[in-house]
Structure formats: structure tokens, C-alpha cells
């Protein structure tokens, strides 16, 4: 068992407060992804867990034992660095065994672990090479192998795929997910790429400026973002936002008004009836009902129609130059200059109050 608890963890570098206070609970065997824009403190949080930085305040507990004063090596965590940090003057085998030699493990046991890890990652034929003779993907495997040989309670990955090309990234994504299934260890993974987060995580932690914005399963975050930031960050292409006001709302009936636009009835209802002057409507590109009949929703003008073959993305504009991206399954017939009418699908819309937090919908 390797539960990880962060309790009001704070970190400042001099006068700069990077993490103003994070509480987080990670249970054994979870694959957790920290995601956020660059500079949001996700790497710092990972380094705090690893023990490479000291916390300014708060507590980190692994298996209910505080590790704040435990050196990095003794916390039972292993880290895969963004640059891989392989020792360039050692062969792959020496790289894998260095940590084990340092704790004076027996030769036979070291050899067993190294060959196990090498077999698992299919790098057996590379053991006698040096890092600079390896490709990016191979280095990545060696870096992961070095973490595996230490048999840690928790794996930490610091943007491990950011140095790989797009194709290899997809492959390694799948491999790391498989690895997690096979090993069953707790893994914490830092990335700024929300696709990696969506595809790999059991649990996503969205961070902004050192603050946890939302924690949850990938699809929960996608379907029920807690605020504007999460709604905009999770999902690709990103959600459309239109600023306006809630003109009328009761249990089964919501009307949203935006300047220059006809009032829009949102199918579905809010959890509590309310009207609000400053509100933002968010609708994902795939959540529109597209029609060519006037009066069936907001009129938009098609600017560019991108045909991907299986999917089409229409870059449109509302009156008042508000950009709207619309997804259509299959190959679209829309052309540049066409006028389409958009309405949201039932309960597939999001309303956010003036402070950016989501207004709860009535559960369907």
C-alpha cells in the first residue's frame, strides 16, 4: 500500500509563493496526472513529493508516515526526469544498477532486477551501450527502467514525453499505461498536454498558479468542469464561450441572452432557479445541433471548413465577431459563407457565473 497525502503543502522561493497551499489525497495504485499550463507549479509539486525541494509549510505523508524530513532517496519514490538524466559516461546496465550498488545490494540480485527491467521494457540488446548511442525513445525506456529497478512505492514522471516526436509520444503513452497496469504501483505524472492527461489518468489534478482547480476522473472533468479555467483547459479543441446573461431560469427552462443575438433556450434545467446578469455560456464543439432552418438557434457564418475525413471542424462567427468552433461527424457539406443555425444539445452546455464557477445543472 502506498497512499500519498498532501496536507496544506506550501512552497515559496524567497518572496515568490509558488504553491500557496495544496491538499490532495492519492490512493494506492492510482495513476494521477498533474496538468496545467507552464509555470503552474506542477513540476514543483512533484519535486516536493520526490524530496528534491523542501516544503515551506505543510505535510507530505506516504502510508501515513510524514516524509517531510526524509531524504529523497529514502522516501521510496523513483523519478523519471524530463531530460531523462541518464549518466552519460555509464552504459545502460551501469545506469540501471547504479542505485542498487549504492545500497550495497548483492550482485546476483542486482543482475536479476536489471535483466527483469530490461526484459519488461525490451531494452535487453541495449544494455552495453551508452546513452548517447540511443534514440530518444530508447533513452526514455532506460530512464523508466532505472526507476523500475529500484522497485519504488510511487513512480514520479516529470513531463517524460515532451522530448519525443508526436508519433513516438502516442506509442510511449500506451506503453506507460500498460506498464502501470502490469506493475500496479502508484504513479504520478506531470504534463502540460491535456491529451496525455485525458488518455492516461485515473485521476486528473488540474493546477493553476499553484492552486488545485479540480480533481477527478478524466471524463468527470470533461463533462462537469467546476469552473471556466478547467472547462477551457480540458478538451481539445477547446470549449466555445459566449458572454451574456441568464434572462430566465426555473427548474425546467433556461433562457440565455447575449448581445446582438436572439435569446437561446437551453434544453434541460438548472439545479436551482436563478437569473444572473454576468454569465458565460460554454458549449463544446461537438455539442451543437446544426440546422439550416432559420430560427432554430443562433445564426453563424462559416469562415473555414476543415475536413479531416472522418470529422469536420467549421470555424464560424456569431454576429458581433464571436468565434465559434463547430464539430460535425463525417464530411460536412458546409461551405465558406454559409449561414448555419446552432442550438445546444440537451444538458450538454455549461453555465458559469460572474466569478467563473460553474452553475450546477439539474441532474437528468
Amino acid at each position, binding site marked *: 500500500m502506498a497512499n500519498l497525502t498532501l496536507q496544506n503543502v506550501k512552497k515559496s522561493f524567497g518572496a515568490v509563493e509558488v504553491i500557496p497551499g495544496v491538499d490532495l489525497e492519492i490512493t494506492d495504485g492510482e495513476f494521477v496526472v498533474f496538468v496545467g499550463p507552464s509555470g503552474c507549479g506542477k513540476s514543483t509539486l512533484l519535486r516536493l513529493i*520526490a*524530496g*528534491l525541494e523542501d516544503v515551506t509549510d505543510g505535510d507530505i505523508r506516504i502510508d501515513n508516515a510524514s516524509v517531510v524530513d526524509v*531524504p*529523497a*532517496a529514502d522516501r521510496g*519514490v*523513483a*523519478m523519471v*526526469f*524530463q*531530460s531523462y*538524466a541518464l*549518466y*552519460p*559516461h555509464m552504459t545502460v546496465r551501469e545506469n540501471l544498477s*547504479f*542505485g542498487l550498488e*549504492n*545500497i550495497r545490494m548483492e550482485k546476483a540480485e542486482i543482475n536479476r532486477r536489471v535483466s527483469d527491467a530490461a526484459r519488461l521494457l525490451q531494452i535487453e540488446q541495449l544494455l552495453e551501450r551508452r546513452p*548517447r*548511442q*540511443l*534514440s530518444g525513445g530508447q533513452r526514455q525506456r532506460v530512464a523508466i527502467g*532505472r526507476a523500475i529497478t*529500484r522497485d519504488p512505492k510511487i513512480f514520479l514522471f516529470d513531463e517524460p514525453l515532451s522530448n519525443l516526436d508526436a508519433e513516438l509520444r502516442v506509442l510511449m503513452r500506451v506503453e506507460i499505461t500498460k506498464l502501470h497496469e502490469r506493475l500496479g504501483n502508484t504513479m504520478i505524472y506531470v504534463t502540460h498536454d491535456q491529451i496525455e492527461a485525458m488518455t492516461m489518468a485515473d485521476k486528473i489534478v488540474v493546477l493553476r498558479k499553484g492552486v488545485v482547480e479540480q480533481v477527478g476522473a478524466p471524463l468527470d472533468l470533461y463533462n462537469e468542469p467546476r469552473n471556466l479555467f478547467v472547462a477551457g483547459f480540458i478538451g481539445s479543441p477547446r470549449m466555445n464561450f459566449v458572454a451574456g446573461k441568464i434572462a430566465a431560469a426555473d427548474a425546467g427552462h433556461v433562457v440565455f441572452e447575449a448581445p446582438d443575438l436572439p435569446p437561446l433556450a437551453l434544453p434541460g434545467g438548472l439545479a436551482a432557479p436563478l437569473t444572473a446578469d454576468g454569465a458565460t455560456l460554454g458549449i463544446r464543439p461537438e455539442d451543437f445541433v446544426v440546422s439550416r432552418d432559420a430560427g432554430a438557434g443562433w445564426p453563424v457564418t462559416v469562415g473555414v471548413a476543415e475536413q479531416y475525413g472522418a470529422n469536420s471542424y467549421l470555424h464560424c462567427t456569431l454576429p458581433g465577431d464571436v468565434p465559434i468552433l463547430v464539430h460535425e461527424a463525417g464530411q460536412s457539406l458546409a461551405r465558406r459563407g454559409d449561414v448555419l443555425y446552432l442550438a445546444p444539445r440537451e444538458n450538454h452546455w455549461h453555465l458559469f457565473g460572474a466569478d467563473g464557477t460553474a452553475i450546477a445543472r439539474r441532474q437528468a
Partner: protein
Amino acid sequence: MTDLSQPKPGLSIAAFATRRRGRKRLDWTDWLTYLYLVLGLLVMFTPVLWVAISSFKTPANLTEFPPTLLPYAAQTVVVEGHDEPLPLFDVVGEDGQTRQLAQLRRVGIQAQMIDPANPEERIVVPVGNATPVRQLYLATENYSNLLSSTGGQIWRYLFNSLFITVVATAITLVMNSMAAFALSKYRFRGSNVALVSILATLMIPATVVLVPTYMIVAQLGLVGNLWGVILPTVATPTGVFLLRQYMLTIPDELIEAARMDHASEWRIFWRIILPLSSPALAVVAIFSILSRWNDFLLPLVVLTRRESYTLQLALASFQTEYGVRYEVLLAMTTLTALPLAFAFIFLQRYITSGIASTGIK
């Protein structure tokens, strides 16, 4: 992945040496470049070559004016009835014929000569008609005399020089790299003050601290002891700075990875930092070897006993004891310079790459 550090197959020494800017003909910049390089070669290399050649000249040849380029020696012949070998001369006779005669003695502008084939008859020849018979001769006895005349002491001096150079360089490398490691990779209060004060010592000339150094060495009872020369300068500010600059380029993530790999700080230094800074270490080693081998002032002050002399001190002592014996002096200078030349030949690729990577001269 391609490895860029490996030399391209087509690049040979000949191709390198004949490289030029102009495609077919020599560009004017080529002329300028080669002229400059040749000038540099002459300025740097001529004195070295002159010493090496002169070390094979006989004493007479050395004091000649005008000097000869190559070592020549007067040819001598052993004549019956004379103990010493006699110098041979080409003599132009009154009949215009040239004969080879051996000179007995010279009186004023006349010289008494004998024909080696007919030693009984003495011939008086005007000096102007006689030119000494000379041939190329390598006076290797300069070297053998050097070894024998010092009575084996030369090996003692050589050992002293080697001991000081090797031991001091080893200690210098360890001390400097430890300081550089701390100054480049640890964040601690006063690290900048420490670095600046180390660098500030560069402004103090060695001669200024010579007397205080001697007093400390004397207090420690190391006068006349090789350690008295080794210890005072094992920490060099240039070495610390050079190594620190190089170590700054080693990624911190490597050290963090090693730290997570249960490596102690000492082990990180020994297994990660040192192997990765080998180019900079080579540069520091070369500088250290050079200065230690050639060091004169500190050994002169500290090493007062003859048994503890270094080669440089022994060299200097040739000039005082029996006058200046140039032939022995030159032979010894050549011998003394040889190890450095070899050190340079073997380590020069590290020097260029090391200096290029640290950006320091």
C-alpha cells in the same frame, strides 16, 4: 542517431593542413593566414630547435663566431709519437695543391704541421692557408658526460621533479575539483563571497606571498623537504574557477537523479561529477604539470639541500659552480623540456577541447 563527435572519414591531416578559403587558387586571406601561422611557428619553435641542435655541439663549436647551424667538429687524427689526437687541416701549398696536415701547435700567424703519413717531417704553414677539416658530428658525449659527471645525482633531481609534479598535480586536481563542485552545485550562504575571494587572490603576485609562504613552510619544519614545495600551491584560483565554470554546465538533474539513487555526496562527486568534467580536469592537469615542472622560485627558496634539488635548480647550479658549461647546460635543458613536450603531445586534444568548452585561456 548519428554521433557528431566522430571525425568525418574524408578529413585527413593533409586535407586539414592544406585547407583554404579560395576554391581553386589561394585567396589573399589564405596568404595572410599562412604567413601569420608560419611567422608564429618560427617565433615559437626556432629557439627550441636552436637549443636542441646546440646541445649536440662540442664546446669549441658552441663558442664559435659566426655560429654554425648544424653541429660540426674538427676532424682529428692520431699520429704516432703524439699522445693527443691532432686536429686536421686542409692546407693549400705553394704549388696550389691541397694537402691534409695535422697541426702540432700554432705560433702567431704560423702553424707547425706534420703529414700524418710522414710524422717525422715538420712543416711550417701560414695560418691563412690552412682551413680546419670539419665534419657533421653529434656530440652525444654532452649527454653521457651529464649523466656521469653529476655522479648519478641527476637521477635524484629527476625523481624530485617527477615526485613534485605528479603528487602536486594529483592533489591539485582533487582539491580544486572539490572546491569547484561545492561552488557550482551547492546553494549555501556565502558561496559567492567564497568564489570572489578565491578569485581575488589572482590579483596578488606570487612573489609578494613568497616570504610569508616560506615562513609558514619553515614553521611546519618542511624546509628542504619536497612537501614544502608541494603543499603551498595545491589550491589554485584559476583551477577552481575553470572547473567551476565547467561543472556549471553539468545538468543538476543528473545530481538529483544520483541523489535519488542513494548516492552519497562523496559518491556523486567521485562517480558522476569527476568523470563528466574530465576535459576541464585535463586542462587543469596540464597547467599544473607545466607550472610544477618549470617552477623555480619556490623550490629555490624552500629546497636548500642538494639532495632535494629539482631539475630546474640543478640546471641553475651549472651556471655557478665551475663557470658556465654550456654544452652540459644545453643537454640538460633539452632533457628537461622533453617530458613536457610529451605531456603536450598526448594531452593536446584535451587542451583544445577543454579550453574551447570552458572559454578560458
